[in-house]
């Protein structure tokens, strides 16, 4: 009997990645809300025991086969959730070429899309110490463009997903970056291939929304 706890902040983009992965992969976890506003619970010693750098989301608990040590960060949670999902679900592919492509896009989310995450945080919650005042949407727009170019070529070859023939954790990792880009002023109108992909993601069984991501469309 598994008993997992996801340490979660509802408005955080990376926590949405984790919740979406749990929902789509059919893995059950209890949500534990971490108040990152006034209470700054991410800095509390008890949370730092789980996530030494105070990073959200964090996942911990018991799997069917044993203890799951505390892990933190969206990529770690996504890979773990895919491993906990039914073995034939295919969220983390095993074919070497597909493994490579998923790794590529997971890395893209962490590096190229980092400015997009910073920009959204800045737009919604105001500046923090590590934000400089020269933030523009240019790097975020450039990263979404790379995704648009890729999905345009995929659409032309009759494919719906970023990698292979079925949705993978790469789609889950990339989805919030596009779905939430209106939060910092980028329109979906310029990315028709990503719009098409977005509506495919929204139609997946188990899909969940978050504030800023409408369920329809």
């Amino acid at each position: 009997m598994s008993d997992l706890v996801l340490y979660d902040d509802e408005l955080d983009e990376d926590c949405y990645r984790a919740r979406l992965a749990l929902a789509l992969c059919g893995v059950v976890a209890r949500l534990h809300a971490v108040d990152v506003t006034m209470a700054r619970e991410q800095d509390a010693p008890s949370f730092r025991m789980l996530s030494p750098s105070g990073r959200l989301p964090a996942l911990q608990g018991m799997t069917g086969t044993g203890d799951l040590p505390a892990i933190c960060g969206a990529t770690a949670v996504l890979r773990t959730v895919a491993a906990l999902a039914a073995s034939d679900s295919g969220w983390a592919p095993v074919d070497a070429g597909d493994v490579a492509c998923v790794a590529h896009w997971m890395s893209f989310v962490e590096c190229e899309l980092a400015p997009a995450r910073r920009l959204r945080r800045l737009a919604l919650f105001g500046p923090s110490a590590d934000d400089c005042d020269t933030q523009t949407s240019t790097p975020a727009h450039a990263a979404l463009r790379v995704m648009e170019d890729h999905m345009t070529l995929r659409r032309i070859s009759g494919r719906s997903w970023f990698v292979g023939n079925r949705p993978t954790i790469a789609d889950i990792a990339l989805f919030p970056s596009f779905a939430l880009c209106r939060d910092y002023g980028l329109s979906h109108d310029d990315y028709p291939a990503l719009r098409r992909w977005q509506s495919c993601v929204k139609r997946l069984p188990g899909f969940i929304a978050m504030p800023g991501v409408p369920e329809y469309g």
Partner: protein
Amino acid sequence: MTEQGQYAPEEVDAHGWRPVALGLDLPPASVTGARIGEQRLAIWRNSHGDVRASDDRCPHRGMRLSLGFVRDDMLACLYHGWCFDAEGRCRTIPAHPGLKPAATIRTTTFPTIESDGLIWCRVDGVERPESPPALTSPAHRTTPVRTIRIDAPTRSVSRALGISPDDRTARVNLPLHDIADTPDDNAPTPSDAAAMSAVTVVVVQHAVGREETRLYVLIEGDAPTTTIQRASRWASSLRDKVEREHKDAIVVEHV
């Protein structure tokens, strides 16, 4: 009118049919935003394939309708779900299920036409407009490739395409010899080679703003997947080149 002098003529000219989307980029029961001059539009398609255009503003709270969704073949606002029919009349207000909305609650609609793989719209109020310009001879069909945004003025795009800024459509011969769509041990026969040597790419440009141009890229006639992908990559390269040159030109102006 006092600000008109700041703009190049093609950027304020909102007369006539303007391309607002590639047909394939607007699947059944979906909506997207577009712009013709100062007019913001919600372009939507019902489940039967019919395309409509409406002012991009909900009369209730001013929300952009292009952020909404299509439900029961009506355009629904994301905020409170008010639904507008093909003529722009509000038919449903979810907060008041028993209420029949007054005929005065409506949004302005605009004529649309879908032809040659493109959706055209006009906002100039002309009563009996002529058809949109034909992109190709009636004997040919077109194969849509993609929509692409370029962050540069239309005049910069026109220059790169080798057309006058008043010509909104460019025809580009795209050579195909450097793509590996035939294996080396299966070299094309001379007649195949001639047929495959080039393809005509039709580019329709639309000024979205002073610093933003949208291109609709199509191929004349039928084309295999590899050729469509080639045309898509060509459009990406064109975008990157135009933006680089435009950025360099701005730097020079400021030196």
